């Protein structure tokens, strides 16, 4: 994995600090051209990986990259699925069962069985999970997707419920079907790593909040650092600036000094911020 990965929160009005800022970003990136311009700036600054949700608008970005292969040589997508809001809204609309069938492609036997309230066999549940992965992956057809992530809301929901097998199902399917490395995003890093370890998933790619002030590091900074030290893990740090609460240089220098962190995912809306982050990171890791 590259040292720096470009995230997509800023494109979709997600800002953990302020709703006003989130709205300003939603306005700024209303047109696809503004998103593409920023992605181009990231590419020109040497960033080659776009870690993105499966938001409907990402499909448009994919179309653009597919249409301009010369402009994006070596450009990779790290899809993060599912786009949780899509499903959460569907659950409100159709109920739990309705939501699942809503996203299933056609009137197959499985869909009919679920709608009929039939009890599901183990292979049915696995089949269902893989159908949902395929639906989310459709938009990336023909593009490079070397790592495919399960989003944190889903990972952490399953983790808390103790539905451990689902991680194994996702892991195996992503490897087999997409020849990609499975990744897991979480807000509960130590607990997830214990669980993956139990499942025999070795040296996993995980992405979690990791920052100097311990913002949204469940259980606290010490537990995180200890876990990163003691386990074989390929960690991606997100929220390294804690939504701007930590000055950029201080934040990145601190990350560079920790063990077990392979990459940083960051979001930025301007070329200047992208360049600054790139320079700070290069400097921190050269030191």
């Amino acid at each position: 994995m590259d040292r720096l990965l470009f995230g997509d929160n800023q494109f979709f009005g997600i800002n953990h600090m302020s709703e006003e800022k989130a709205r300003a970003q939603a306005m700024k990136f209303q047109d696809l051209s503004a998103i593409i311009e920023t992605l181009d700036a990231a590419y020109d600054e040497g960033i080659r990986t776009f870690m993105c949700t499966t938001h409907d608008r990402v499909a448009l970005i994919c179309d653009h990259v597919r249409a301009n292969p010369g402009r994006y040589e070596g450009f990779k997508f790290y899809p993060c699925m599912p786009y949780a809001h899509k499903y959460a809204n569907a659950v409100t609309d159709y109920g739990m069962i309705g939501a699942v069938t809503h996203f299933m492609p056609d009137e197959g036997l499985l869909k009919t069985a679920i709608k009929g309230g039939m009890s599901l066999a183990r292979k049915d549940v696995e089949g269902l999970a893989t159908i949902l992965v395929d639906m989310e992956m459709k938009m990336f057809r023909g593009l490079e997707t070397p790592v495919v992530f399960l989003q944190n809301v889903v990972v952490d929901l399953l983790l808390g419920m103790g539905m451990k097998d689902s991680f194994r199902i996702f892991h195996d399917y992503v490897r087999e079907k997409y020849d990609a490395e499975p990744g897991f995003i979480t807000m509960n890093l130590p607990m997830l790593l214990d669980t993956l370890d139990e499942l025999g998933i070795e040296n996993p790619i995980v992405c979690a909040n990791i920052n100097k002030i311990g913002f949204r590091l469940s259980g606290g900074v010490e537990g995180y650092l200890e876990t990163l030290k003691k386990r074989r893990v390929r960690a991606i740090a997100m929220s390294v600036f804690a939504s701007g609460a930590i000055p950029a240089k201080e934040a990145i220098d601190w990350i560079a000094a920790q063990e077990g962190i392979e990459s940083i995912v960051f979001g930025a809306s301007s070329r200047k911020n992208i360049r600054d982050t790139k320079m700070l990171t290069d400097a921190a890791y050269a030191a």
Partner: protein
Amino acid sequence: MVRVGLVGLGKMGISHFSIVNSHPDAETHVCDASGLVLDVVGRYTSAPVWRDYDEMLEKADLQAVIIATPSQLHGPMARKALERGLHVFCEKPFCLDWREAEDLARLAEEKGLANQVGYHYRYVGAFQEMKRLVDAGAIGEVTHVLAEAYGPVVLKPKGATWRTDRAAGGGCLYDYAAHPVNLVNWCFGLPAQVTGTILNSIYSEATDDEVYSTYAYAGGLSVQVSVNWSDESYRKMSAKMTLTGTKGRIMADRQEIQVYLREAVPDLPGYREGWNVKYTTELSEPVRFYLRGEEYSAQLDDFVAAARGGPRKDLNDFASAAQTDRTISMMIDDSEREKTLAPETVRQAPARRRGWFGRAR
């Protein structure tokens, strides 16, 4: 170790299950009437599952329950649990009849049982800071409050579930408005008078999609409630409180608090005259397990701690939720009054598109 029975595997129920099941001091049983979701939980998790609530209460040897069923079932289920001496955490709104809510609050207190309702905004750092500042008199006498919530829940006419039926406890008033109303109750209690309430449909046939109301309090405080869950310009639910006082103003939402003080307050170091802004990074306490927000874990961890014999927190107890139930009921009564004055001002839901054979889509 506390044995907790969770009933209702809907959106909130699943989230509560995940949080409480991850708690090192809790062992969770799960109950749901729908076989399919329960089947999956039974097969893929270690939680014992029950189809019938009464049977679970009888046989599972529980010490506590978490109730996340459709709202109209809350009251009867909470009563059964309390009568058996179980601690109860219930989703909001608590009871559709506020008298029942007050009864249950009394019963829980008499029996010395932990009792909480899922008004999780009281566990959000920025709103806790708002409450602290108001209580400290930072902005003097509060003269006006604007309590808002907006979000994209109902954006088109849709099929009927309990969430689209006011009689079952569904709709913008019970689902969305209850939160800002609960925050108003937290700071100022029950209003003396409720007027100008509009509970209009935008898309829903059997419930409201927008809620507006004015409260008056003894002494002159006025509150305006403005809530709409059919607003697509918001990515997700956004609740916001704006409080205007004689000595300043507070604006708080889930992420930040902006405070203007006409003068510094000695008891509040960290605040100065003029503008003060604090963000969630500074206001949130880290939690043991995180799912969608610190507040969800914090409220359930308090509940588990209380059920284990620790101190009972009254932050979102039954009595406080009963106050919100009662305020909501005042709003419904007022809106009925308003409707009779000018029935032509009540918006009708558009007809849903009909598919083949007249079946609603």
